[in-house]
Structures are given as structure tokens and as C-alpha cells.
């Protein structure tokens, strides 16, 4: 019998409950080099970022009427910045943030 540390346990055959919105067992946003930053003052709610994000990392917070960014799965492709119609989105270097992905205790 093998001894597997608790934090390294993997379900049989890697079969997991199907995620409803997010798969917490597989955070994929941590190889990002740049991240999109939103200026809510400039945003005109055109929804382009929400429509164009290939990983559904922009969601509309209907109560606040503003797009919300999901850092856990954003790969930093910056398609949202490119598609933004109002100039509300800009890119920022990940290293400039205190919680930047390169500072995670466990990078992968």
C-alpha cells in the first residue's frame, strides 16, 4: 500500500463532482502574466468583455450594475481589453500586485 499525504489525495480515476460554476480542484488562473483592470467610472456596460471572454471570467453583478472579474480562471489573454468599447479596461503587470499569482505559495 502506498502512503498518500492528505493534501495530495486524488479521487479514483480523477472523477469529480461536475462543477456548477467553478471547479475549485483546478485553479487555472495562476500562469497569468498580465491581468485586466476595470475602471468602473468609464464602463458603459456594453457587455463586450462578458461576451468575448473565452473562459467566462467576466460576469455581470446585476445589483451593482458592473462586470466582476474572476481571478481564479483568467489566463490573462486580454481579449477583454482589446474588445472594450469605452476604454474602461486596461492591462496591468501581474508582478505589480501584492496578491499577484507569482507570489502564491503554491504556484501550480
Amino acid at each position, binding site marked *: 500500500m502506498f502512503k498518500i499525504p492528505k493534501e495530495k489525495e*486524488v479521487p479514483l*480515476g480523477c*472523477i*469529480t*463532482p*461536475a462543477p456548477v460554476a467553478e471547479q475549485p480542484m*483546478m485553479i487555472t488562473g495562476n500562469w497569468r502574466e498580465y491581468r485586466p483592470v476595470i475602471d468602473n467610472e468609464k464602463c458603459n456596460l456594453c457587455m463586450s468583455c462578458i461576451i468575448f471572454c473565452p473562459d467566462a471570467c467576466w460576469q455581470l453583478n446585476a445589483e451593482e450594475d458592473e462586470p466582476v472579474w474572476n481571478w481564479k480562471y483568467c489566463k490573462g489573454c486580454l481579449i477583454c481589453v482589446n474588445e472594450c468599447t469605452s476604454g474602461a479596461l486596461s492591462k496591468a503587470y501581474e508582478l505589480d500586485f501584492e496578491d499577484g499569482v507569482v507570489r502564491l505559495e503554491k504556484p*501550480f
Partner: protein
Amino acid sequence: MAKEMVLSGLAASAQAAKLAKIEVACSYPIRPYTALMMELAKMVANGELDCEFIHGEGEHGQLSVVLGAAAAGARALTGSSGVGVTYAFETYSPIAGGRVPLQMCIADRALDPPGDFGSEHTDAMSARDQGWLMGWAETPQEALDNSLINYRVGEDHRVLLPQFVCQDGYFVSHIPGPVVVPEQAQADEFLPPYKLPHPLDPHHPVSHGPQIRPDQGTVIDMQRAQAHLDTPQVIKEAFEDFGRIFGRKYGFLDQYKTEDAEMVLFIQGAHAFTARHAINHLRAKGVKIGLVKLRFVRPWPTQEVAEVLSRFKAVGVVETSTSYGGAMRGGNLLHEVRASLYDAPKRPLTTSFMAGLGGEVIPLAEFYWMAEKLSSMIKEGKTRKTVYWVGYESED
């Protein structure tokens, strides 16, 4: 009552599929295995088998179809030969790693180049390290029996592994032999219904085959390795139940005339049939020779091989596959045989014979020649060569 019939190996495999009540079969033509799908298609058309019969667009597609079917909880069967087996290669590891216990019938065919329709174990043996169970049949009867045993073992929740159920092309797949086809009730007693622990199910959604992190890779590999460690016990139980229900006794190694043998041929598959006759003739001349036949290459029965083979003075491994540039310069089996014997207190002299390649028969005269080589090894007390290409050696 069980029926006695005369069936080819693949017709016998089709009978096994019917007895196992397979729910999905996926075909793609390549000879010689195609005969299996022809039999199954007939059974479905005649209403004898309630099975979804799908024609794949290639071997990769075939394996993907049965993966989906078996992942959704259907007992599934596919098959192939030669380059068809290698064309589907990418799918083998994820099926075993995802722990989906489907079955693939392989009727061996030599790989290219150049195109040779003959039988050779290299096609299936190339995939032996992917985590599947694997073993050969010597006769059509064994083709039927192995299929049922493999479904039972592979689907056991202590195992959950796919199975390559192999038979030599033509020698077993197409030459009819006597087969006792058991009663459905016997098969039902031996083989419980297929139940996957976490099937694809819209009411209880699960993810199969997600991307994993590098630090999860070792653990997944270890799960598969552990399953292979647990499998021999499950096989033993299956052998016992099989003997009780069907009256045919099987073991990891089948021995023939080994009680007082000084030397044995170690072999798997169809050529064991001819080897038995050669041994009968050699025995009549006073040569103390026997035969040890391998039933499962994966999981390899290390303990049994060490125990059984260390009783003899010389072992000649008959290789029907190639391992170009390997440690023994011949086939695959001698590597495993020698590795199994390394820690044994008493080791026999071992060598290997490349024979039956490209679909050639191994005639009696070649087995006599092998026995001579083993005799002179015993006389000299050493192994002169680790591989002989039978029929092509300049006298040494």
C-alpha cells in the same frame, strides 16, 4: 445444458460477448479480428443480442465510442488487429487512468512494414505498459473463457481496469476448434451486472477525465499501479468461481508434463498447442521436457514465475513478439522472466527463441531444435546466447 460446438476463436469470442450481454459494440474493419464484429452484427440482426452496434470511423474513434459507452455504465466491447491496435494507442492510457473497465479483443497481426497479414504478438505487446489487463488464449475455448474472466476481473471495484483479451490471428481467430458454450444461467452466476462507481449520469453530474495538476500525476499513476497490485487476488477468486461454475480450471501458469522435467518451454498463446505435441514426441524419446504457459502478461505473475521456473535446469522462452534493441536482443518475455527470477534462491539457465514471427507456424522440428539447445545448455552449465532466431542461426 452447455452446448458443444465447433467454433473459430472469434466466433467463440462473439459467444462470450453474447453471454456477457454486452450493451455497446463498436467496429471498424481490419483483418483478422473483423470476424468478431461480423458475428456480433449477425447476432444483433437476428435479435439474439440486444446491443447498440456502432460503426466507428477508425480505431481511435472505436475506442472513444466504447470509452463513452462504458463511462455511462454500459458493458462495452471493441477490437482490432495489427496497425489498428497501434492507431488507437493514444486512447489506452486515459481509459486505464480513468478506470473504465471496457474490453478490447485483439486478434494479433504483424505490424508494418512491410504489410504482413500474419500473426505476431507485437501489436498488443506494444501496449502492455498502459495499465490494461492483458493475456492470450491458446484455443477458441480459452478465447471464450478469457473474455468472461476478464470482464469479471476488470469490472471488480477493487480493479476497475480495461482489458486486452488477445488471441493469435488465424491460428486461434480463424481455425475452428471444439468449444463448450455455457448456459446463460452459468454466465449470469459468474458475471454480475456491470456497475461503475461514478458513471456519467445527467441526474448526478460528474466530470470524467479533467485536466489535473502535475502534483496529482504521481498519485493517479500510483492508483493504477495499486490496482495492478490488487488484481492477482481478484483473478484468483475469478479462477476459483470459474472452475466451480464451468468446470474448467485455470491458473496464472498452466503446466504440462513438468513434474519430472529438467527443461521447459515458456510460452503464451496459440503456439503452445503445437508445443504440447512436440513435447509428447520428445518425451517418447526420453527427453525430460515440459511446458509452462502464461495466461496474463499484465499483471505479470512475478511470484508464480519465480516459484515454478526455479524448479528446472533450463527454460526456453518462446517469443512471438519483438523488442528491438532490448536487453536480451530478442522479444519481450525473457526480460520479465529473468527479472522475476533475479531474487530467486535457485535460478535456471534461461534463453529465448524467436519463432512464429510474421505469422509463420512453429513446426515440430523447430521445437525439437529448441530442446536440443536447452539440452546443450544444461550439459555446458551455461547460457551461451540470450536469443536464437530459430531457423536462421549459423551453427555455433
